[in-house]
């Protein structure tokens, strides 16, 4: 794509797929780190949301019990996935809906396209959905002559700016109000050119622009936050009311949902509906949550036809079953997309979502994207598990207790294993050589003691507190912004040996 002058789009190159970028993380991050406006926007937004989350989580006395419950429900779900999906399918079908299964993005896109075609419509209204972003549905529909309108404010901003989302919950988090005003003023049909950058004014401009669209749209496309197997009920959690518009007013509703989103029981929602809003927007409850079961006109005791006459549920695999096959990594499928882990992540806060090259950025993206695309040993996504200092802030806030740091460590091992099996007998990477050498030395105390002693001989390689010589190439990035420590005259074990032999006291 081309970058428009004056447009706040920060995207540089077309990603190779919605879940894999073209550059590895360090390279993409380097560019993002140089963007001081981005740093300021992200720093501000993430600190606001961290504060809100902490306040509303702090007032829940049974938060940890809710997390324990959520973790167990998700583990149970994965273990019972086949039967739960079959149960969901049966209940949705009994309630007048139709269930479709899609092995990959292409298949899902084809199904949705055919369903839209069958209605005779050429436009659809969309409520924000990670699953449809993941499969690149909008682009696919466009190629097929169908216009997909994003109706979530942040998605709308990103769509108008021809930018990429950079956050799971707030896709335009990388843009400031001034930049958003610019997008609206130049790209939104019929907008008042005197529009100010007040968030309220911007929201009202979106309301006016989308209103007519909502009222005329015949087809809605959504994702789902949860689907209850025992009842066939689907749920979308949102704030603006655009979700309600898309889920209620059109004649046909098409929902694309990852297979892992199913929950066993209706009752399980009492856990997730407490965890999700507080973790994501930092609210006790989000403004609107919609629940529907099939085509709801069937329901007894209600005031007649309510909502779409036709409902299609597309169940998406697209790599999820590969993730499920890994005992450690499968917990990534427990994610409820709250984005709390992004908001607390010091790496995300500084590099932004685009650096991850996937619609799933931040800590969850670092474990989910490479598993969805597969760790090959040399793919761009293989760099993602390393995009973390393993500080553990993500695990602390995750409402479903995904141990992200442990999964990162495991994925790093899988990456190295993949790399080793690729390289085979050919030359291993310099890092692999160094690691093997270090392990060889460290497995034996005599070799280790000799090596630490000899480190002092390395001092000629240091000049003015900076490293020179062979070690420096490995350490350059590190030592350019930090002074390396000076070496002690004596290692601890030398001191201890001397003390034991009566050399000097403690």
């Amino acid at each position, binding site marked *: 794509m081309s970058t428009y002058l004056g447009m706040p789009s920060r995207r540089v190159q077309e990603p190779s797929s919605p879940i894999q970028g073209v550059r590895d993380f360090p390279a993409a991050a380097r560019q993002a780190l140089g963007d001081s406006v981005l740093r300021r926007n992200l720093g501000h937004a993430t600190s606001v949301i961290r504060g809100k989350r902490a306040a509303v989580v702090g007032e829940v006395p049974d938060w940890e019990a809710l997390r324990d419950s959520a973790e167990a429900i998700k583990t149970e779900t994965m273990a019972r996935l086949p039967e739960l999906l079959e149960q969901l399918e049966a209940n949705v079908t009994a309630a007048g809906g139709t269930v479709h299964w899609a092995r990959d993005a292409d298949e899902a896109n084809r199904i949705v396209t055919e369903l839209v075609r069958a209605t005779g419509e050429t436009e659809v209204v969309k409520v924000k959905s990670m699953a449809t972003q993941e499969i690149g549905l909008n682009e696919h529909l466009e190629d097929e002559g169908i216009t997909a309108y994003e109706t979530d404010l942040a998605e709308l901003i990103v769509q108008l700016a021809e930018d990429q989302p950079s956050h799971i919950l707030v896709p335009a988090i990388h843009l400031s109000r001034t930049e958003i005003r610019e997008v609206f003023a130049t790209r939104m049909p019929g907008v008042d050119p005197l529009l100010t950058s007040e968030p309220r004014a911007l929201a009202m401009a979106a309301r006016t622009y989308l209103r007519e669209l909502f009222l005329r749209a015949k087809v809605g496309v959504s994702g789902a936050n949860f689907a209850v197997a025992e009842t066939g009920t689907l749920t979308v959690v949102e704030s603006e009311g655009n979700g309600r518009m898309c889920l209620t007013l059109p004649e046909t509703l098409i929902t694309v949902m990852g297979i892992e989103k199913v929950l066993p029981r209706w009752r399980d929602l009492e856990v997730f509906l407490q965890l999700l809003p507080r973790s994501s927007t930092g609210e006790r409850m989000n403004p609107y949550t919609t629940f529907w079961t099939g085509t709801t006109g069937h329901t007894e005791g209600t005031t007649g036809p309510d909502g779409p006459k036709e409902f299609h549920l597309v169940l998406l695999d697209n790599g999820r079953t590969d993730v499920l096959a890994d005992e450690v990594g499968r917990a990534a499928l427990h994610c409820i997309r709250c984005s709390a882990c992004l908001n607390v992540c010091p*790496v995300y806060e500084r590099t932004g979502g685009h650096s991850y090259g996937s619609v799933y950025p931040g800590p969850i993206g670092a474990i989910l994207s490479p598993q969805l695309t597969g760790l090959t040993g040399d793919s761009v996504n293989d760099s993602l598990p390393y*995009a973390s200092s393993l500080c553990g802030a993500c695990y602390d806030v995750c409402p479903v207790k995904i141990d992200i740091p442990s999964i990162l460590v495991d994925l*790093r091992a899988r990456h*190295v294993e993949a790399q080793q099996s690729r390289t085979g007998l050919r030359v291993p990477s310099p890092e692999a050589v160094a690691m093997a050498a270090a392990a060889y030395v460290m497995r*034996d105390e005599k070799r280790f003691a000799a090596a*630490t002693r000899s480190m002092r001989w390395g001092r000629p390689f240091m000049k003015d507190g900076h490293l020179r010589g062979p070690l420096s190439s490995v350490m350059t990035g*590190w030592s350019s912004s930090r002074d390396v420590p000076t070496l002690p005259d*004596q290692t601890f074990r030398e*001191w201890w040996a001397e003390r034991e032999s009566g050399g000097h006291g403690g």
Partner: protein
Amino acid sequence: MRIALFVTCLADSLFPEAARATVTVLERLGHEVVFPTAQTCCGQMHTNTGYQGHALGLVEHHVTTFERALDEGAEAVVAPSGSCVGSVRHQHAMVARRAGDEALAQRAERVAEQTFELSELLVDRLGVTDVGASFPHRVTYHPTCHSLRMLRVGDKPLQLLREVRGIDLVELPAADECCGFGGTFAMKNADTSTAMLSDKVTHVRETRAAVLTAGDASCLMHMGGGLRHQRTGVRTMHLAEILASTDGAGAVS
């Protein structure tokens, strides 16, 4: 109590003063410190960089070494590093299991149960917060990520520091945010690491402290490097060094 010192490879080779200070504090409290000389490295770097195959040998070596120390009468293992204790406690058994060595995993769990970070050992196992130290300087404390979130040491280091005579302990803004070290993260993602470090350095400066302390030599090395690079004049000292200090002014080396 007889306590085996797990010095950690970094403190052994680069920061022996932190390890010596650990010995000083424990001996001053009347405990016997032994140093199993066979010890080398816990393998954390290998594990965290993806080389679990290599880490396995190091884990086995570590477990064998400290198992022997425990068999020979040590009642606890102590390390002046939250991160290495974190690796022992949360990774060793995992590395063994991933390699299919359940026996080693169980041995690792036994060693892990008896392994403590210094502030945990002092406050929880030995029940002391006043270790008889004095250190009349302005100090700020950075809770390293692994101490904070892997080990959950909470405010134990602060409990210890508050009892130090003469200390002027000031709170570090955004203290619980990572300093950007993360082992090989600092090299593989040097730019991001630097950005994190520079924010940490800014916060340290805001405290106007003379000394920055923490329970991990690795993070201190990282932050110290940044502080020196920016010529802030702030010194870094391991928590153990402050706890070992009795002669205020002289302790700031």
